[in-house]
């Protein structure tokens, strides 16, 4: 398959990726044999900052999963996220703003 200046051979690429995935899986198996997982109370205590955290309690808040990305796009989340509040009047305001923006954009294009 060819697109403009690029080239992509999907079947060749798929075979290469499958081979790579198989090789990675073999490396994973080999690594597991070399260093078996041995969770101990001392280890858990160290990694939990002195606290004993049960495995089922160790769940992170999914909203904070990419907190660094949130920090980078702080202005976006400060101004745009409140617009997704679930309030109908805010949603209707979005539509009115949208119509005005589209009207102006079409006017600029058709002039």
């Amino acid at each position, binding site marked *: 398959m060819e697109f403009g200046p690029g080239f992509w051979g999907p079947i060749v690429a798929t075979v290469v*990726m499958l081979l790579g995935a198989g090789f990675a899986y073999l490396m994973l198996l080999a690594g597991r044999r070399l260093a078996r997982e041995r969770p101990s109370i001392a280890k858990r205590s160290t990694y939990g900052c002195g606290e004993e955290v049960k495995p089922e309690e160790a*769940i992170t808040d999914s909203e904070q999963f990419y907190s660094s990305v949130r920090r980078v796009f702080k202005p976006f989340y400060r101004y745009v996220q409140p617009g997704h509040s679930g309030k109908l009047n805010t949603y209707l305001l979005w539509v009115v703003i949208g119509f005005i923006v589209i009207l102006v954009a*079409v006017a600029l294009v058709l002039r």
Partner: protein
Amino acid sequence: MIEIAPIIAVLLPLFGAFLIPIISMVSKRFHVERACSWFAVVILVTTLAVVAAMGAAVWGSGVMVYKLGGWSPPWGIVLAVDGLNLLIALIVAGVSSLVAIYSLVYMRQDTRIDLYSVLLLLVTAGAMGSTLTGDIFNLYVFFEIMSIGSYALVALLVAFRRKWDSVEAGIKYMIIGSLGTSLILLGIALLYGMIGSLTIADLAQKLGQVAASDVLVPLALLITGFGIKIAMIPLHAWAPDAYQAAPSSISALLAGATTTAGLYAMIRVVYMMFGAFGVGTMFAVFGLVTMVVGALMALTQRDLKRLLAYSGISQMGYILFGIGLGTALGVQGGLFHLLNNAIFKALLFMCAGAILYRVGTTNLNELGGLGKNMPITAGLFVIGALAISGVPPLNGFASKWTIYIAGIEAGKAIFSLIAIIMSVLTLAYFLKAINSIFLGQRPKRLQNIKEAPLTMLFPMMLLAVLCIVLGVLPSLGINLVAPAQGALMNQSSYINAVLGGI
């Protein structure tokens, strides 16, 4: 026989919907379980077969025209099928059929399945009618049928499970959606007042002679109205609430079928009727904003269905960007992504439904380690997630790659770069979802969760296979969208076929 296929494709689900109450009464009388659901499956699969049967005629000779009552346009109403709306009709009928099969088990516990089946068929009839018609007022009427059915389906869970969130989301969707369709009706009224015709081909022919300033308001009204249906930023606000509150099968239908029909209406009206390829740059910019806002919002979601809703908004941005470029490659990429989006979006919502069916929640904070309990669902979700993120060798990669290259060739390399970054963000939030649902520690209460039933897994597997096949053999997808691309870029054959040289 094939000449009447366009009207059959519309009437089958429409009359099927009206037959459901009778079937419900008879099945209750004779204690036949799930008769309504099976009837809906049969009707929708037959509709798909009828649409597929039109393929040979349309791909061979160009445009199929069916005149209602034998009245010629522009006085009579016509159904006109070219490569573009055939592709959309195939997507609508295909997704609706799979949703109906999925619903056989997914909606089994709900008592008003007859109501559900009626609405499902009505939405499909509306989408099919608005796709196949060659008359803009007819398009509006079918669009309303599709929209009203969708509002009811979003709110339907209140009838089954007293879920009041569904009513709230349904009412919000109804108010915003009705505003959208009102704007469409106003736009059509202005056009009719100006031109005196409602046939799309006739309008396309005569609008070329009208001053640009005269079409400004109707064009803006129509773009806003259809923009609400496809959840284009900033007209998207209804979508996350509606997708989250609706039954997952209906979220799959909304994302895969009705949005696709909405986008078709937008393309048909703006590109073919107004011949406004100049508006393309505006679409490319709106597409870019849509993909950025959708992706950034998806990144912070705690609920899987809400995340998928924002992700769907973001993918719509890619489609708008590709089609907005206006080049052959851009349109090809946009339409290919439209097809792919319907496939992986339906798959992902069905996976969310499978999780909801077994666990009872899609809150990412309450899930974890389900890969051990639901390995097939996990595998299918990963395929869908990688496909939507544009990871090779899946179908999303082929269409996104086409769009990136088209952007670079059109001199909009910065746009392509932003699109690539948004793909990385897409992968990021889907990795978060995979980690939160299928990996990590499994809460004790999830230890006895079982895999989703086979009837639900079957349509999901079919969609996953399509993700792989269209990725490994992208030429299949490209060949499928090529007639649609040809029809979109050359409107004269559509106009000539409908008007017959008038």
